[in-house]
């Protein structure tokens, strides 16, 4: 492939290329050494009340060495010689993996393993493994090219695309059955369902923001403000006035949508970066109002003891006040604290499905097409007589409304809300979910929310390295799939139907060739 082309006209001698490569690898290793020598090489420890430090030379040398050899392998791979990378990456993966699996703790073996915590070692193993996979992929592609076949990655991409509806159905079925699957003990089950509930909340937020950022192309950095409006709407109405969750849910959505329109109206003439900055400011404004307007919002302390959501009027509690029937009494079940967890899980699942349904529907309506057209070219939209302000406002309001629903669910689940939960980082995480998923892709958001929210929750043992892994994951996704996990966009309407597409395209091409031949 391109590699072969690049290799042919190489008048530079092998020696110079090698010297150049060595120089680069050395430079990378020196930089790694400088970076790690102080951050990794010296660890502060408190011994008998004093602050002391220990040294960790081994980690520094392993890091520098790995970067040196890795750099050589990668540069060889870039020049079309993936074999060393395949062997090197494979060997390191095998050896370290085997040591980790065997859990041998003799000193000689331990010296080969870079870190103390096994889970961090497992994480570090991703890098040589990724190198190995990439090299294998290149070799396969070159081989496929030689045989005149489509590259494997292209075929895989096409198959994934075809599989998307099936992935969706499979995911829905798994989600419905999840509480009934044997997930271990009661606490274990609770933990997993809790994590999935959290992921679903973020999926819902991602789907909401996807309308604004992915479809309408308006970069909103203050999305968490609408989440906060929804949460506080339910929190305040239920604690101050005792309104039920089911009354507050639509109200929270409406309130958030109103705020969306209020924010949108003055700022929608701004484009791109300017809009992003104003929405960022709006997000902070809402948070600071929540902190300072103590009388109404409870200030930094937030709102406590928010009532739980009931099962259509039946509270899911062990003990209920006189005269009311609880969920387990009504259905004649034994009280199980997991009932509530499962109820909340299904609640957010249904909310998320509804959000998805509405979004998918609207994408096929003129409004959704106008959103996408606006993202592509606002000037052309105006020339076609599309009202850009109204179109953007509906996108803002719709996205905000979904965040409002998610917010009131969040308040009902946690029973406690404070401005702490609605910081800018939340907006950034939701935006990251949308961008990594592939702007505009519904299923991509499910995948990226699972990766970005579910994985860190599952790997809490990683402690501080969690965020490091998060960062590495994001960088890797951006390198390999710069358009997001699911970057492909399927037209909302087709003239020829899906199957006939290649034939039609082919005939167009042949017609063109015929004309060119003339």
């Amino acid at each position, binding site marked *: 492939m391109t590699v072969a082309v690049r290799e042919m006209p190489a008048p530079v001698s092998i020696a110079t290329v090698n010297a150049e490569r060595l120089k680069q690898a050395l430079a990378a290793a020196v930089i790694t050494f400088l970076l790690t020598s102080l951050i990794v090489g010296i660890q502060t420890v408190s011994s008998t009340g004093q602050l002391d430090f220990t040294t960790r030379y081994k980690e520094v040398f392993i890091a520098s060495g790995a970067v040196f050899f890795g750099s050589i392998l990668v540069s060889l791979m870039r020049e079309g010689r993936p074999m060393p990378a395949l062997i090197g990456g494979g060997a390191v993966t095998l050896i370290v993996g085997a040591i980790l699996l065997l859990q041998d703790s003799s000193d000689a073996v331990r010296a080969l393993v870079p870190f103390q915590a096994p889970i961090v070692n497992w994480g570090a193993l991703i890098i040589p493994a990724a190198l190995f996979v990439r090299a294998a992929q290149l070799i396969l592609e070159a081989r496929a090219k030689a045989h005149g076949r489509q590259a494997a990655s292209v075929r895989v991409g096409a198959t994934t695309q075809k599989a998307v509806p099936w992935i969706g159905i499979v995911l829905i079925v798994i989600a419905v059955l999840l509480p009934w699957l044997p997930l271990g003990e009661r606490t274990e089950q609770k933990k997993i369902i809790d994590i999935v509930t959290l992921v679903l909340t973020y999926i819902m937020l991602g789907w909401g923001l996807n309308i604004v950022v992915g479809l309408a192309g308006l970069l909103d950095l203050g999305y968490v403000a609408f989440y906060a409006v929804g949460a506080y709407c339910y929190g305040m109405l239920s604690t101050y006035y005792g309104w039920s969750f089911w009354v507050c849910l639509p109200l929270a959505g409406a309130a958030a949508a109103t705020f969306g329109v209020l924010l949108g109206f003055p700022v929608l003439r701004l484009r791109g970066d300017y809009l992003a900055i104003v929405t960022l400011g709006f997000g902070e404004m809402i948070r600071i109002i929540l902190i300072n307007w103590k009388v109404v919002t409870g200030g930094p302390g937030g709102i406590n003891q928010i009532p739980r959501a009931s099962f259509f009027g039946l509270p899911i509690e062990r003990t209920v006040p006189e005269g009311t029937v609880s969920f387990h009494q009504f259905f004649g079940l034994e009280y199980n604290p997991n009932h509530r967890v499962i109820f909340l899980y299904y609640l957010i699942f249904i909310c998320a499905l509804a959000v998805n349904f*509405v979004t998918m*529907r*609207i994408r096929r*309506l*003129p*409004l959704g*097409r*106008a959103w*996408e*057209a606006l*993202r*592509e*070219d606002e*000037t*052309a*939209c*105006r*020339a*076609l*007589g*599309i*009202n*850009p302000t109204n179109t953007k406002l*509906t996108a803002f309001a719709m996205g905000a409304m979904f965040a409002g629903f998610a917010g009131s669910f969040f308040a009902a689940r946690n029973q406690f809300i404070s401005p702490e939960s609605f910081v800018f980082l939340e907006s950034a995480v939701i935006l990251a979910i949308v961008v990594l998923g592939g702007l505009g892709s519904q299923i991509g958001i499910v995948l990226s929310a699972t990766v970005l929210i579910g994985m860190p929750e599952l790997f809490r043992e990683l402690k501080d390295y969690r965020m490091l892994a998060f960062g590495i994951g994001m960088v890797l996704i951006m390198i390999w799939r710069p358009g997001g996990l699911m970057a492909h*966009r399927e*037209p*909302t*309407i*087709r*003239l*020829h139907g899906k199957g006939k*597409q290649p034939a*039609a*395209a082919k*005939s*167009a091409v042949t*017609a*063109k060739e015929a004309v060119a031949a003339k």
Partner: protein
Amino acid sequence: MSAVAQQGNGNSPLLRVEHLTMRFGGLVAIDDVSFAAPPAQITAIIGPNGAGKTTVFNCLTGFYKPSVGRLTLNAPHGTFLLEQLDGFRIGQKARVARTFQNIRLFAGMSTLENLIVAQHNKLMRASGYSVGGLFGIGGYRHAERDAIEIARHWLERTGLTAKADWTAGSLPYGDQRRLEIARAMCTEPVLLCLDEPAAGLNARESAELNELLLAIRSEKQIGILLIEHDMSVVMGISDHIVVLDYGRKIADGTPQQIRSDTNVIRAYLGEAEDEPLPPVVAADLSHNA
């Protein structure tokens, strides 16, 4: 052709531009330009680069608010003062459609989607402003089918049927130009403003474009306003030509009149040399000859 043009001028014109002036700070881009575009005819606006042609279009389609002037559209469905309408309402209410000098398609959307988006206002009403469409009530399905038929018609006219499901941005350049015209036509305009539709087309493609424009004019009976540098297009199909130079109108008439107009020749080719050449140069020239 000229007789028709004259007759058209006599009747009430589709578009009347009176004393149009556009200033950007101290710069006068258009200076007191008046002309009229008759219905069901092709009016070309030509002039050297920077003459203010595109600025006239931007004033007509609401992208600029003119500093001075009145732009009257006398359409079958009503009379509109374009300078008083908001940008997008000119497309929505007055039904003036335009294309752009640098193509502005919805590049990430498919060819067909581009044409469906162009019928936004009609479909929006049919979908009950999305409320009805969301729950599948009302006549949205029917309206969408009609919209697809209109799109199919224009795809056939522009030879893009086979590429209906392609991403618009991946179409070849000539196809993109034609798709932009098809998209403008899908808004069912009464006045179509084309900004250099033949730019970058080869001879065969611009001949096809000529046919398409003539067909649109005669079948749909709509007025076409055309900015163009390609003289084969301008002289071949225009009924009426307006020539601008440095923001002023320097000539106005049929292609034959414009061809022999001294002002136009001077604007395009420069001043004829009146003074005798310096002796050295004259000697040199004669020597070479």
